[in-house]
């Protein structure tokens, strides 16, 4: 009986190990978070780290969604409020507010989000290109991920990190 179970478990593990290898090309890993009402996600590889809110310094003559700069272990990094970026109503910081520090080849910046959800693995073929109506939205959306219970908006990190003022 126990032997059987053990085998079953081993079998399962084996399957798990093999699975990502054979389909690793199609799976992308994302981190999901909530801004306002909506759930968004970004590729995990673009995340440098996620930190609790710390003090920041306001920078003058920038759009209001750029909150300022903060000190990340000796580096000065811009801080962007995603609520304001998406033209949502501002809300107070809560205990679940986080800064996600995202980076691409050239740029790095912190983004204020309301709440983290989970790490998500999604098959590439379940991601649709953004609907026409949203494309004009500065191209910040990479695609729409379809999941069993809900859909999520996958953001384009390069676009978020691109200065457009």
């Amino acid at each position, binding site marked *: 009986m126990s032997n059987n179970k053990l085998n079953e478990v081993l079998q399962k593990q084996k399957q798990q190990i093999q699975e990502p290898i054979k389909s690793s090309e199609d799976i992308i890993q994302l981190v999901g978070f909530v801004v306002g009402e909506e759930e968004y996600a970004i590729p995990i590889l673009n995340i440098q780290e996620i930190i609790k809110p710390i003090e920041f*310094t*306001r920078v003058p*003559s920038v759009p209001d969604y750029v909150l300022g700069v903060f000190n990340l272990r000796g580096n000065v990094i811009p801080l962007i409020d995603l609520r304001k970026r998406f033209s949502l109503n501002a809300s107070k910081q809560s205990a679940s507010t986080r800064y996600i520090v995202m980076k691409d080849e050239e740029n790095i910046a912190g983004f204020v989000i309301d709440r983290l959800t989970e790490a998500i693995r999604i098959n590439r073929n379940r991601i649709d290109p953004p609907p026409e109506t949203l494309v004009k939205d500065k191209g910040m959306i990479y695609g729409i991920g379809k999941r069993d219970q809900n859909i999520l908006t996958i953001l384009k990190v390069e676009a978020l990190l691109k*200065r457009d003022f």
Partner: protein
Amino acid sequence: MDDMKEITQDFLVEAFELIEQIDHDLVELEANPEDLELLNRIFRVAHTVKGSSSFLNFDVLTKLTHHMEDVLNKARKDELKITPDIMDVVLESVDMMKGLLHGIRDHGNDTDVGIEISDICARLIAISEGDEIPTASTPTEPVVTPEPEPAPIAPEPEISDEALSSLSDDEVEAEIERLLKVRKAEDQARRASKGISSPATTSTSAAPKPVSTSKPTTKKDDDGDKKVPAQSGGAVAQEQTIRVEVKRLDHLMNLIGELVLGKNRLLKIYDDVEERYEGEKFLEELNQVVSSLSLVTTDIQLAVMKTRMLPVAKVFNKFPRMIRDLSRELGKQIDLEISGEETELDKSIVEEIGDPLVHIIRNSCDHGIEDPETRRLAGKPEKGTVELKAYNEGNHIVIEIVDDGKGLDAAMLKMKSIEKGIITEREADAMSDKEAFSLIFRPGFSTAAKVTNVSGRGVGMDVVKTNIEKLNGIIDIESEVGKGTIMKLKIPLTLAIIQSLLVGTQEEFYAIPLASVLETVRVPIDDIYTIDGKNVLRLRDEVLSLVRLSDVFGVNKVFDGGDQTYVVIIGVAEAKLGIIVDTLVGQEEIVIKSMGDYLQNIPGIAGATIRGDGRVTLIIDVAAMMEMAKEIKVNIRAEMDAESKNVKEKPSDYKVLIVDDSKMDRTIMQKSLEPTGVTVIEATNGVEALTIIKSGEHSFDAILIDIEMPRMDGYTLAGEIRKYSKYRNLPLIAVTSRTSKTDRLRGVEVGMTEYITKPYSSEYLENVVRKNIKLP
């Protein structure tokens, strides 16, 4: 192939170093044509370059230097007198040599740059053969047609042949000794080169040449003859210095920057720890470690900064030549006096100040110094003088360019500027002489009657201003008509780690590079005037434009200033501006950090730094802020007056804040104040009270504070309120049941104005408030 490349590289480095010196020497030579030492030095340069270039097959360069060498050799042996005309040709050929060397650096050969040398060669030959030298053909002969002997032995006969005619016995001795040395060194070099990976390449490339043509033979020998001793002589010196890539030094500097920030941070933490654990034993030890660390850090910083330092001579050296050419071109007589050329500056700055100096000096020569005729009539010596001085002043280097020319005429400058539409007549009237002088930095301004080759295109001085601004430098002009002009450039020693003045406006802090801060003053707002929509301050005999830092950067208004305000006076290039700030925090060493691509080029912000407390503070770009300040039109005085003098007509215009956590106590206080008719606002604890005060919605005339409250007690609240300069005189009245003497003392310490103990009579409270808010 790689070997050849390497050799070419070495050759270029050496050649560029040599020609840097040669310009200087040549001009000096013109003044002292008899100076044999100088002549020899110049001759050696031409000779070395010739030798090396022939070895490397740069035929054009070889031919040019060969002819130069001929002329110089004659001069060296006193067969030729150096006249200004000859010097012109020689200098021209030096320029061509430079051009060719640049060509070699950029293209790898000396033909692609397309410099035509036949003409200059012809002239050089004419000089060397010309005039008073009867033996013209003899000295040239040995050079052109040398003995067809094998390479190694060639130098001896050639030199002796050539030298025989003029060398004295002693010189012959010396020559022989020199040759012996050369031979030794040559052997050494040969042995050494065998150690190198592929000696074959070097020897084969060198060997066939002497055989192929006879002409290069001599040159090849000359090369060995001259270049080798230079190397062996340098060997001793080489052990003292190492060539280091600038990139490495930059990296080192960055690391030091981090270290300095760390040090600042540590010092701050130590202060906190000291407060908390006063008297503890380990503090002493910690203190020692922290102070020695901070000492060492400062030393390292200085040491690394020193490695990046170069003497300004590097820039100054090209000016004697420039002045000489200019004076000939302009038909004026000008002397250049250089002093303090050993003063050192950061490499990056040395590279930047070259251009501005060129423009200023040209300007002095062209517009400043008059022609000899005019000068004589004015009772001045015919020869004009331009002085170039460098010296240290604190954390700055000052470069002064002084000329004894005709000086700047403020009235004339104004007139010209009005003509050209640079300023309006009204502006001109309001200008002081100093301001008028600075008109020369405006783009499009030129006082030269006609555009000469030298200046007058109206670009130059504008460049000066931009470059000096870039370096956070300051330009000061003093001038007197008929006497001359003094231009002072004050430039910070280094750009990476700078001293700054930290200022606060509302709740934000900014760092102003100390190099740009001229002074700070505290002025009553009554001294601020508005002229033409501009805010100005009269300071001593000057009228300064004023701007509020909070207006420039759109800082959220949290509280108002008092009737006094701090003004930081900054200077950029030639302009000045007063910046109104709320607090002066102090001086701090900061390291400029970029805010990344995302926040690049924010107007008015030069970068950010991390302070001792770990917070990010923005660094003001002073030059950019000057521009921004021009756009701001706020009547500061009127605004401040409106704030500070809210006219109060009836009792209900007075506002009193009651801070108490007990509903009953608040009601009692309110009831007590009812007879006065003042408006009462309530808060239930310190935090709430502070929020109300900071919101600026109400301006209070007095605050009644209970001491014991949740979240923030009365003492803390009073302390917080007193931090704002605006509330320094606001009556704070403690209303408490704490009656002990220490409580009262504490109250005084944190800045309570009155201390009322519970229980109290309503009349008493009413009277105290009445008295404090000066209710009629």
